């Protein structure tokens, strides 16, 4: 699942869907952390990886356009 999301993020031409895939990847790994008894890391990953990173990426493509040129 992680691999599929990661590959999609890396291969897609449309950056926005890549970013969404990356966010989903983060969220999914947060779930894995939770299952591995690491609640602290899970919260951090969800807040930072899925939240903050996605916001910054979205800000970036607002400036540059969605096309990966």
């Amino acid at each position, binding site marked *: 699942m992680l691999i599929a999301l990661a590959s999609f993020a890396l291969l897609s031409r449309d950056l926005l869907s890549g970013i969404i895939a990356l966010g989903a990847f983060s969220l999914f790994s947060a779930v894995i952390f939770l299952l591995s008894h*690491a*609640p*602290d*890391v*899970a*919260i*951090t990953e969800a*807040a*930072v990886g899925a*939240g*903050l990173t996605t*916001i*910054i990426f979205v*800000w970036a493509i*607002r*400036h540059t356009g969605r096309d990966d040129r």
Partner: protein
Amino acid sequence: MRKWSVPAQIAISFVLLLLFLPLFLSQESWPTTARDILAEDAGTQTGAENIVSAIYLGYRAFDTLGETIVLLIALSGTMSVVSLLKRNSEDERTPVSLDFSLEEEKRAHHRLRTHLLEVVTGKIGPIILLFGFYVVMNGHLSPGGGFQGGAIIASGIIFFVLGNPHRREESEIQRTTLHLIESSAFLLFLLAALVPLFITGEVLANPFESKEVYIIALNTFIGLKVGAGISLMCISMIERRNV
């Protein structure tokens, strides 16, 4: 410039993968020494029930200091590049909208959506802020802590800003306040690190009788600093140019 053919690329990656295979797949069992020590003393030495917090803010608080500084400088570096972008786009006089809320003339067409967004974010903001503070203050007992709570506080502040799009003139004041909060929190953190040096002779050691106080204090400072820093960066990112 030379180009790598696709088969060559894959071959190189695959060879590297094989060479690193043993590191990933070694059968040795995970060491337990550190865990056993911690399970024994962490609570009594640092006063935190959450052992991860005990390490993060007790045993290895110095790493955490480094981490907050990484955050501090990375954010200030990002913001300086962002302000550079704004300046450049002003120079070229290209209308770049850097705003999440809509322009005045468009607002009429999307009144419902805009209104909904503003009301919801404006009302949810305080609740999220409160939750963030809760996470910060309970970091030594339950999962969470300064950093996680700080990120939540930041999202609360951003919601506030999104909820009040008309008061642009206050933006400068907000920004100064956030800068002040960030710097003061950093000051407090640094004080918390250095004051014990003169009391107990150690850096980053607990100077208090009661164990929890020190870890809660560190959590609070980090939470404030992270919250202010992240929201500052996000605000400068979403703001319309030239505010």
